[in-house]
């Protein structure tokens, strides 16, 4: 193991990971059932929790689907098109990652809130939730599809064109199959991010129970009203979702690697 961290390094890394990540998550799991399994179940299936989880799932799926289309479009234009300021736009794509989520909330409120110069006010609607989620997840599909578009073999597209295939046919039959693994993994990451999003939605979503309250906002409310055990129960559901998505992304990565080879 030349150049490796040695047994001491490995031990330290494991200890660090345990103290910072694993112990708190173990506490979350263990204490979610502090009141017994019945209490856990009734916390997860309370009407407000179920509504929040349903809204979170629905919005996150919609966000993943929209990103799959718009992200692929943006990645395509950034690679294949040539225009002034392309480098600037390309750098701008990472802005949602760099901008603090609470600032995203302020930014969206400026354009879509009560003081909007456009006169549209979407605050406390599902549109507001979607805008916030689309903003923070914008880079995922773009950044996963972009390198694949760069590597695409253009001779195959030219060959198809010379055989008389139209643009749409070429895209559907030649280009898209190569992009699918990257699009799916980007969309899955958008989904995972959207499921847990908090900072960007907390100001603009209005957080009306049964209408615009996302799961993370619901959990926050439960903590504030001194019900950490109930909050932990719903958190465990989110944790399970996160793990499932991570496993799916891992499987997609291996599938994509086979696809290339």
């Amino acid at each position: 193991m030349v150049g490796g961290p040695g047994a001491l390094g490995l031990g330290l890394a494991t200890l660090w990971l345990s103290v910072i990540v694993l112990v708190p998550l173990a506490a979350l799991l263990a204490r979610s059932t502090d009141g017994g399994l019945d209490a856990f179940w009734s916390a997860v299936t309370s009407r407000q929790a179920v509504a929040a989880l349903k809204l979170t799932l629905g919005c996150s799926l919609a966000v993943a689907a929209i990103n799959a289309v718009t992200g692929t479009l943006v990645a395509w234009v950034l690679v294949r098109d040539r225009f002034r300021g392309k480098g600037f736009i390309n750098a701008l794509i990472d802005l949602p990652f760099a901008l603090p989520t609470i600032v995203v909330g302020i930014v969206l409120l400026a354009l879509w809130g009560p003081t909007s110069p456009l006169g549209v006010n979407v605050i406390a609607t599902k549109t507001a939730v979607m805008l916030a989620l689309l903003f923070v997840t914008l880079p995922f599909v773009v950044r996963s599809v972009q390198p694949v578009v760069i590597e695409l073999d253009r001779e195959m597209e030219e060959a198809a064109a010379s055989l008389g295939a139209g643009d749409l046919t070429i895209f559907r039959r030649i280009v898209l199959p190569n992009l699918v693994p990257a699009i799916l993994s980007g969309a899955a990451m958008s989904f995972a991010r959207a499921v847990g999003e908090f900072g960007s939605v907390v100001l603009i979503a209005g957080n009306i129970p049964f209408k615009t309250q996302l799961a993370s906002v619901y959990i926050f409310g439960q903590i504030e009203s001194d019900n950490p055990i109930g909050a932990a129960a719903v958190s465990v559901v989110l944790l399970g979702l996160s793990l499932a998505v991570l496993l799916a992304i891992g499987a997609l990565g291996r599938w994509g690697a086979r696809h290339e080879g």
Partner: protein
Amino acid sequence: MRDDRRVRLGLRILALGYLAVLLVVPVGLVFYRTFEHGLAPVWSSVTTPAAVHAFWLTIEIALIAVPLNTIFGIVTALALVRGRFRGKGAIDAVINLPFALSPVVIGLALLLVYGRGGWVHLPFQVIFSVPGMVLATIFVSLPFVVREVVPVLREVGDEQEQAAATLGASRWQTFWRITLPAIRWGVAFGVVLTTARAVGEFGAVSVVSGRIAGQTDTLTLLVEKRFQNFDLAGAYAASALLALISLATLLAMTVLKPRKDRG
């Protein structure tokens, strides 16, 4: 695809239009609103005692969290790429968890360990105090350095390290003379991402901070507090300060990316 100008132009307008409506116009509008009455009110708003305290607390937390995550990130990346041991897959999966978890869930998990009735009782206060906020920040920004360094380590391979070892270099010498110089741009990129996340974290810190004015307010918490108190101009000013840090991050990313990719 054939170089059809109309198709190309159409796609360009769609893509740029989407980016403009979602991203550019709202961000531009906040900058305009912040500075429409000049620099003086913005300056006085970000130099109030509460704002100055929030600024330094944000820096302090980042100065603790970022170096720790950098050292840990390099060691873990080395273990994942160069080491051979059981449970590598498990570590790999756990490393990514902070990315996929809701920050509120992360804050709650810390609350359940260190809070009232929690598992661990330390001689000093953790929850509703700075140590808890540091722990939350370390948690959320943990994966960045590992994620950036792992691919670079794979790319450079271990031939040079083998050679150094053959020539009698110790493990420590090999790391400083061979490994670290080879991965430095990857590390730098990871540090930039870690810093941006540490400075901008809101949800997890919000749960464990207790929002004590002048004590446990970071810049992001100050933004929310000012907004809730109907101090919109103040919220904009603090947001602009954070946005400037984000722009510096973007700039650093743009400069570092080609160096990192070249290796």
